[in-house]
């Protein structure tokens, strides 16, 4: 398929913008509409844009990691965050937090809910990746036993 370079580039531009937006949503989630799910899904929606222009190969170009790695890491982060308080004699999932002052940013409040939400975000992003892995293959390419896309996926 011949790509229109300019379309390609603009989609990537939009993609990155949306990605930044999604990370913003992730971080403000505690106080405004947003949060891990929403942010992850928005990132996923952005990925579907990339898919539309370049198919599975284009989606695979987004990340160096395998989708299941992202997902598994997400689950690992969230569950570890959940487990951590147990070792301190708290209940599972108990949020542990500290607040401190940084010179430039002012008063910072940090709590374990954030890594938990990051885990959620990663899982959702990973899921979207996997969905494209599952359904995204070109029907024509799939007829051949060794499609190029796969080679590419494997080397990445």
């Amino acid at each position: 398929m011949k790509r229109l370079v300019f379309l390609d580039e603009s989609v990537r531009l939009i993609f990155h913008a949306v990605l930044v937006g999604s990370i913003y949503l992730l971080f403000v989630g505690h106080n405004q509409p947003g949060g891990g799910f929403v942010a992850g899904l928005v990132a996923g929606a952005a990925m579907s844009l990339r898919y539309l222009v370049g198919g599975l190969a284009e989606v695979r170009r987004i990340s160096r990691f395998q989708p299941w790695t992202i997902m598994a890491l997400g689950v690992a982060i969230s569950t570890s965050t959940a487990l951590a308080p147990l070792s301190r004699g708290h209940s599972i999932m108990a949020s542990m937090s500290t607040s401190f002052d940084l010179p430039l940013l002012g008063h910072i409040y940090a709590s374990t809910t954030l890594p938990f939400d990051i885990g959620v975000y990663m899982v959702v992003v990973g899921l979207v990746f996997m969905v494209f892995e599952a359904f995204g293959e070109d029907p024509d390419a799939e007829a051949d036993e060794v499609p190029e896309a796969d080679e590419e996926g494997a080397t990445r």
Partner: protein
Amino acid sequence: MNQLIPLPIVLPLLAAALASLFGRWKVVQRIISVAVLTATSAISILLLVRVDRDGPLVMHAGDWRAPIGITLVVDRLSAIMLTVASLMLLAVLVYAIGQPGAERHHVGFQPVYMILAAGVAGSFLTGDLFNLFVSFEMMLTASYVLLTLGGRKDQVRAGMTYVVISLLASTLFITALALLYSATGTVNMADLAAKIGQLPLGLRQAFAVLLVVVFGVKAALFPLFSWLPDSYPVAPGPVTAVFAGLLTKVGVYALIRSQTLLFPEGSRPVTLLLITAGLTMAFGIIGAIAQDDVKRILSFNIVSHIGYMVFGLALFSVGGLAAAIFYAVHHIIAMTTLFLVDGLIEHAGGSSRMRELGNMVRSAPVVALLFLVPALGLAGIPPFSGFVPKLGLIQSGFAAVGGQGHRALVIGVVAVSLVVSLLTLFSVIKIWIGVFWSPAFETPSGAAHTVGRLGGPPLMVIPTATLFVLGLTVALTAGPLYRLCERAASDLLNPHAYITTVLGR
């Protein structure tokens, strides 16, 4: 001690994450999974001992006290179920590792299996109705995946039935939750128990019935069971064993828990449960008789025997509930063992269809023994494990006849249960004849393996034999176990301790 409560849920989840991270190293995956399930088994035994001594234990997730947050509660019933479930999961995992098949060919097997384990544990431990939904979904989604691992045509076809019906049940569950929240403003079970009591009687009854239907699909009650015998047999062997042993029992657990905890006496649908129990027994066994395939016969037997547990529940007496709980324990062990034996049969004979098998009492005598005893136990033949709860049910049934109401119905159900246990005997003996005694009529469709003295690879035979011994132990130590079940049952009928521990009043 309370710190242990969430571990049976969270540890497998962590293991699932690690297992998929270490997907390239099969050995690491296996070590992690076996270690985690061993740990959860140990934890659940500890919890059982502790809870039996000191009463229910709770943990409020995130330190948000009930009814705000999600509460995890261990009482005797959940500890019993959790213990049995953990042991089964562990045994089947070892078996799966020993068997050439799904576990070896799919890197995804281990993580998904761990998620299943977490879902099962979550269902037993949670004290929150919505969290129960989430746990169900963990368990079910994992089961969808395990069922279709391999992607064969029959698997996909059966998977569709299974997934669609389960999704319908899940939607019904959400509907019930929405309606309950609508009426009470809470989803915490202990809190619901208090608030449902203030609703008008008719609405309470309608809720009780709605929940019977919701959990009835999972537990495979008449007429909601048809999905089960169609879908279970297509899964890879060990997976079917877990499904058969555990998944329906989680439904039964939810039925018992919801009907005893949430609904005060008088609003429980006793008549409906009795009728359902009788019909489930009857139709399940009728289905079993009509089959030619070992797995299908056993699958229908699952359905049939759920009826016994529901009968025990429907009596709402200590005796009835204790028998139901004991029956569940026995049934989990016996069914899992039998499906593992079926795996051995398939391994040795290349098929699970009776006319392609035969004369295995000669070729694999160990397998024959491993089959016969749990099978007789399933049919409630004394002194094997199924007899004790059956006797308990008959006794409680007749005792209930002396009480008020439902006389004819209870007598009818007892009669049905007796006839059904005869037919159960017939159905398992049919397997015995078809697989072990009579010569094969056709050549098996799959490849048969040569088996040694044990009748299969050691890693397959040893877990099976362990469960076999466990079943015998349950029968031998039925006295103390039954007393434990009675204590659990009287907790259920008198949920005051549960509610006050959860709500902290």
